C-alpha cells in the first residue's frame, strides 16, 4: 500500500492567504481555474484579464500574466489582448455587477464577435466588493443595501440570466451555467470550465461559464446557509446546464 496525493493546491495557485471572506466562492472558482490551466498546460501561455470586484486581486492568487481592466470592460480588454496576441490563451474573470451591469455591452459584443477568449463569470447576485448593493442578478425579493425592502420586479426588473443570453449570440461556441455548492456540481463546473477553455484553444469561438456563487458576507448568512441558498433559491431561477455547445450542436441554430 502506498499513498498518493488525491488533492493538493494546484501549482498556478499562489501559496498565500486570500483576502476573501470565510466561505466565499471566489476561492473555489480560483482553484478550479488554476487547476484547469494546469491540466491543459496553459499556464505559461496565458494572459488573464482581471475585473473590478472582490476578485480584483485575482493576480495575487493565480500566477499568470495579468492585466487589470476597468470595471465592466474586461471583455474589451481581452479583445485587445487576444487581437494583439492571437496565439496566447486569454480569459477574463468577472463578477455579476461587472459583467451583467456596467459591462453588458462589452460582454455581448465580445461574445457576438466570437472573440477567442474564455469568460469566468461569478454570479453571487450582489455587488460584493462595494458592500452589498443590488446587482442585475439579484433575486426578486432579495434584500440589498440599495433595494432594502427586497428587489421589486415592478421597478427593478427580473434577474438577468446571462448564460442564456450569451448562448443566443452568434459568436458563442460554448455557454454554460454551473454551481459550486456540491461536489457533484463542482465536478460539472470543472468540466464546463475545461470546455470553455477548449473552444478557445481550438479556435471555435467564445467560451462562457457562469458560476452560481455565494457572498456570505453581503447575504448576511453563514457560509453553510449561503451554500444552501444556491440550491434552494438560485438554481430554481438560474437553471444549470449547457445552453450552447458547438461541439455537440446544442443551442446552435
Amino acid at each position, binding site marked *: 500500500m*502506498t*499513498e*498518493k496525493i*488525491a488533492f493538493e*493546491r494546484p501549482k498556478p495557485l499562489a501559496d498565500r492567504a486570500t483576502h476573501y*471572506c470565510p466561505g466565499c466562492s471566489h476561492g473555489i472558482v480560483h*482553484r478550479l481555474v488554476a487547476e484547469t490551466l494546469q491540466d491543459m498546460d496553459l499556464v505559461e501561455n496565458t494572459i488573464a484579464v482581471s475585473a473590478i470586484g472582490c476578485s480584483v486581486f485575482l493576480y495575487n492568487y493565480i500566477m499568470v500574466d495579468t492585466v487589470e481592466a476597468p470595471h465592466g470592460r474586461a471583455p474589451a480588454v481581452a479583445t485587445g489582448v487576444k487581437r494583439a496576441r492571437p496565439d496566447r490563451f486569454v480569459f477574463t474573470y468577472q463578477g455579476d455587477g461587472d459583467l451583467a451591469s456596467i459591462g453588458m455591452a462589452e460582454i455581448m459584443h465580445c461574445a457576438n464577435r466570437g472573440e477567442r477568449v474564455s469568460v469566468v463569470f461569478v454570479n453571487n447576485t450582489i455587488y460584493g466588493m462595494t458592500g452589498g448593493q443590488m446587482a442585475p442578478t439579484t433575486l426578486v425579493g432579495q434584500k440589498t443595501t440599495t433595494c432594502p425592502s427586497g428587489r421589486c420586479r415592478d421597478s427593478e426588473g427580473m434577474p438577468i440570466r446571462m448564460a442564456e443570453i450569451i448562448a443566443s449570440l452568434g459568436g458563442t461556441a460554448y455557454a454554460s451555467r454551473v454551481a459550486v455548492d456540491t461536489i457533484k456540481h463542482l465536478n460539472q463546473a470543472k468540466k464546463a470550465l475545461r470546455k470553455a477553455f477548449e473552444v478557445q484553444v481550438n479556435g471555435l469561438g467564445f467560451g462562457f461559464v457562469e458560476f452560481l456563487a455565494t457572498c456570505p458576507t453581503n447575504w448576511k448568512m453563514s457560509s453553510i446557509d449561503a451554500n444552501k441558498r444556491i440550491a434552494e433559491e438560485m438554481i430554481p431561477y438560474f437553471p444549470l446546464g449547457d445552453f450552447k455547445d458547438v461541439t455537440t450542436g446544442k443551442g446552435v441554430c
Partner: protein
Amino acid sequence: MSRVVFLKERCKGCLLCTQVCPKGIIALSGEMNQQGYKIVEVAPGKMEQCTGCASCAMICPDTVITVYKTVKPGQPVKPGEPGEEVARVNG
C-alpha cells in the same frame, strides 16, 4: 487509511468542508489561528474513516486541505488521473 492535512493558518472556519465529508469526520476544533478564525480538524481517532474522497478539499475556498489517498500500487487516484507518488507518511 487515507488522510487529510489542514494548513491551519489558511482555514477561515467556514465549515463548508464539514458539510460534504461523507464520513462526517470534520468539525470545529475549538482552536483559533493567528488570523483570528476558529478552525476545523478531524477529531482525534476519526482519521481512519477518511476515504480520501477529496470532497472536503474540493469545496474548501481556501485550499486548506491536502488529501492523501492510500491506494494499492498502480491504482490511479481518480480514474484516468495519475496521482503523484509521495513518501508514505502514515499508517
